[in-house]
């Protein structure tokens, strides 16, 4: 009897630690994707789709690493990453706002440009060692069982998940500029009639979105892996675009999406580390299956919540 009880207690303890590893891993893995998603929320709210987000992240990851390596200061690296991401998106702005080029094609093309550019710029920095963003343990609070290691142990950017999403929400829904962004996203014509300059606002939205995308990439190279490797974003930019859709263009809901995705990656690795009897290849599909599932479940609500201007992008008329 007591041995049964013991086994149950033991199982509970191990499953708690699975949950803890999972939660901590979800935050570690999800942070980069979340920042990129927040940036994309702003861009899409302004009526644009940036399929080059992967390239924006990669640019941030690369330039952030280079600057952190050169200066020895990861925070200068973060600033550089944000600026690099912002400039990357301004390039997209020239193509799609000023030149009215097809947004989907322009974004993808810029992504491939970024792959080449970052391989070139990062050439000398592959595998180099930096002092990245350090692990911060909040005194006392990080001692709390379960919650402590999950919520009060991390890097600067993972602590900023909730504040950043709230700030983006506040900017979009509580400021004049946010209203302008959303107006342009619904209808450039209406925005113009209301005395706004749609081009300028779209450029601004792209720049701010790029800052966040660059930061997302920098989390990979400065905090998470703390190394620069070409193509290191490995598809996370596209996942961020998907998250924006299933978050119904809402910054706070994007947290759920990013943590689900990050959690799915952590989950399969945690299961493998525990030798769970499941194929690693099957588990590897989990993040994407989950993304698909949420897209399916939340899909119907989309038509009411998508910025009107996006339909024109997909029709190819904008």
């Amino acid at each position: 009897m007591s041995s049964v009880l013991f086994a149950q207690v033991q199982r509970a303890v191990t499953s708690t630690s699975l949950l803890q590893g999972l939660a901590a891993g979800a935050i570690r893995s999800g942070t980069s994707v979340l920042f990129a998603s927040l940036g994309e929320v702003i861009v899409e709210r302004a009526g644009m789709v940036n399929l080059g987000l992967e390239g924006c992240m990669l640019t941030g990851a690369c330039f952030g690493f280079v600057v952190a390596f050169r200066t020895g200061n990861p925070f200068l690296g973060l600033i550089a990453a944000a600026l690099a991401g912002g400039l990357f998106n301004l390039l997209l702005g020239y193509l799609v706002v000023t030149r009215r080029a097809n947004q989907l094609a322009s974004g993808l093309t810029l992504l491939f440009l970024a792959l080449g550019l970052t391989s070139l710029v990062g050439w000398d920095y592959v595998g180099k060692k930096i002092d990245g963003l350090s692990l911060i343990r909040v005194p006392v609070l990080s001692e709390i069982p379960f919650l402590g290691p999950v919520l009060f142990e991390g890097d600067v950017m993972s602590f900023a998940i909730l504040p950043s999403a709230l700030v983006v929400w506040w900017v979009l829904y509580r400021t004049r500029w946010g209203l302008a962004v959303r107006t342009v996203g619904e209808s450039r014509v209406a925005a113009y009639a209301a005395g706004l300059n749609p081009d300028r606002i779209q450029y601004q939205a792209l720049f701010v979105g790029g800052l966040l995308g660059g930061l997302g990439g920098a989390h990979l190279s400065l905090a998470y892996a703390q190394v620069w490797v070409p193509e290191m974003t490995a598809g996370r930019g596209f996942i961020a675009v998907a998250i924006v859709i299933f978050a119904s263009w809402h910054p706070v809901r994007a947290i759920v999406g990013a943590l689900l995705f990050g959690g799915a990656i952590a989950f399969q690795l945690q299961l493998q580390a525990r030798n769970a009897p499941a194929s690693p290849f099957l588990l590897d599909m989990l993040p994407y299956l989950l993304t698909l599932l949420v897209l399916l479940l939340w899909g119907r609500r989309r038509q009411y919540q998508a910025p009107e201007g996006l339909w024109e992008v997909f029709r190819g008329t904008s």
Partner: protein
Amino acid sequence: MNRFHYVRPLPIVSAVAAALLLTTSYASPAQQQVQLKVGALHVGSVNDNGYNQAMHDGLLQMQATIPGIELIEAENVPESADAERVMENMIQQGAKLVFPQSFGYLDPALNVAKRHPDVIFEHPAGYKLAGNLGTFWSDTTDWEYLAGIIAGKSTQSNKLGWVIGFPIPNILTAINAFHLGARSVNPNVTTQVIVVNTWVDAAKEAEAVNALADQGVDVVTMIVDSPAPVVQTAERRGVMSIGFHCLCAQSAAGENWLTGIGFTWGPLFTKMATDVINQTWKSENIVGNLAAGSATFAPYGPRVAADTKQLVEAAKGDLIAGTLQVFQGPIYDNAGTLRVPAGQALNGDDLLTNADWVVEGVTGQLN
């Protein structure tokens, strides 16, 4: 024999990188008369702290040893018809010896070799030869056994971890040799394998190390493109690490570094170039090993104890002398099947191409 190792998931990505291709030409410093022009194609960056850098370092050593060698290197070359064009271009520049340094270049190299019978090709890890194309590799199985001894003696939790790209025979053989080495000095040791299903996702490799560390694993090693992400994450988690591919992996490490297995191609490449210059080169498949060279250990980290180093030296002597065999029976796999009967020993060659099992004590889902 990392044959599937360098096939890129996104050829188009590499093609873009190739658009910005760096073709670097290093003339000998003293500008002596050029005896031999050597071309080399790399699938990635030559400073990846990994496979490609090991190849590059070998070529530089060859150049430093033989006077009058001009080296033409191209990086990020896709494993496609593009590789043929790059080789043709090098031959036009006068290259008489070409190293297509990735497994996926074998067929393009055979095509080019057919068109240029006067040019010599040396390709890593092949199963095909041509009159003017030889192959080479380095079997690190014995080194993995020795690394296992270090891991088995250094661990306090008795839990070792591996991060691998894909569960292919040569990697499973490496894991088996490693675990057998660890078990030879520490019967309580277990080895957990994580398959990340990619060669190049640094963040996922980092998370794999985190997951292993969460389980109390205190020594990790890896076979992925670049050892740097695993080594650095281990360092931050206070987990000991053992590198692979390039001795230079140590530059990414700190006090938790134990050692690393790295290829040392310099002497082999030097011999090949000398043979080409002297016109004594012949086409063959050369496989280095513990005795014959082409790999070694990186310097030990501070956590490797003196008696561990002695154990390694003793085992190294026995392996070279043949009195110790890595796959000496009885060996059971982790499903309980007898794989090597008592009194018999398996040799590495067959395992490197066919192994689909891991030894008792190794855990991990491989398919």
